[in-house]
């Protein structure tokens, strides 16, 4: 599939914003794919962590619509293994935060099974609300 991408000054603005919010130097990423290989959640993701990094570098705001950023569970497997020392979990968090700061929710409380939710340790609810709601 061939996708047309337009790279302009706005793209640089998006990249800069993510760099600031995550505190990571994204240009260090050489697309080696170690993060993708380490990520346990990759089975449910629509784009891989490597692809997420690349799209951010290219300034493509489409990455904000990916399911990937919400599936990331911040397990830090990528963080521990990145050979360039980049913390990809912070990049995913920055992307989530941009959405969350506009009051966008990934978690829809109406879809949650309340009876099951009551069986969970509270930390699951606290964490889910923090990571998946705005």
């Amino acid at each position, binding site marked *: 599939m061939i996708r047309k991408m337009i790279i302009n000054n706005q793209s640089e603005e998006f990249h800069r914003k993510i760099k*600031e*919010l*995550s*505190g990571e130097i994204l240009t260090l990423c050489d697309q080696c794919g170690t993060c993708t290989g380490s990520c*346990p*959640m990759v*089975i*449910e993701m629509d784009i891989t962590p490597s692809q997420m990094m690349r799209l951010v570098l290219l300034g493509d705001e489409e990455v904000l619509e990916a399911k990937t950023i919400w*599936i990331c*569970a*911040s*397990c*830090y*497997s990528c*963080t*521990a293994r990145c050979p360039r020392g980049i*913390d990809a*979990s*912070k990049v995913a*968090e*920055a992307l989530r*935060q941009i959405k969350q700061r506009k009051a966008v929710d990934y*978690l*829809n409380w109406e*879809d*949650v099974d309340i009876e099951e*939710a009551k*069986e*969970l*340790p*509270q*930390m*699951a*609810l*606290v*964490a*889910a609300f*923090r*990571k*998946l709601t705005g």
Partner: protein
Amino acid sequence: MKRIPYYPGCSLKTKAKHFETSAIEVARALDVEMVELPRWNCCGAVHSLATDDLMHHVAPVTDLLRVQELKQSQKWDDARLVVLCSMCLNVLKRTNKRVKDVLEDRNKINDFMYLEETRYDGNVEVVHYLELLKEIGFDKIQEKVTKPLTGLKVSPYYGCLLLRPKDIGIDDPESPSIQEDLFKALGCTVINNPLKSRCCGSYHTLNDKALVAELAHDILTSAQKAGAEILTTSCPLCAYNLDQRQKEVLNKYPGFKPIPVVYFTELMILALGLDKNFAGLEKHYIDPRPLLNCKGENV
């Protein structure tokens, strides 16, 4: 009796109560009294990774401030804060590091928390229960073992947050040994699970059971293939995902053999010959008692 401040976290007061009771009882047997922090609040479960997000650090800083207040009001043998839950460890330790290192952020947060009587000075240290055990010495713990768990094939499961990120984790993320050494001291046969630090899916268990079931299946079958009979964990959420979610695993993989998952402190209760009521063995979805009775226990 050495006294140390203790932070439970919300889940250890309710769904994971037996984790707390077993840990406190084991500590008592090792001459350590865990004193619960007064007026603690939920730490937030996850650490906020955005550089500018100070609001989500207020909760853990409030807890660290409580430790500081406790330190100032009484004499303590050990004024560090001990935690049991891996997620609480991660949040408290990471936030502590942030406010220790960045004075400006610490000042901002302290200014925001103007209702408090003192300001947090960054001098609290957070440790995990397992680190305390290591300091006591696994050989000393072995001396106190009255009923070694001989023949029990235990595979410790670390999960993500005990070991990662590297500067926060309590052991090497690729080859940890702290729980392995502990279980050897208890007389167990230690089985290495290559997926011992693979994420269990964490909070996705709320609305994406299928993902958690898949991850749990991988972690548990990997341990079983290596010969494990029981897994241990140090996190109420991992415990739920690996224990209760075996129901979903069985639905998806009918050939799956259920395997019990317990808190490591429950096995310590048995090995140290302490009152089994503190262990909470009956509180698990996959009952560990038949296996333990097979190995000579009487539970």
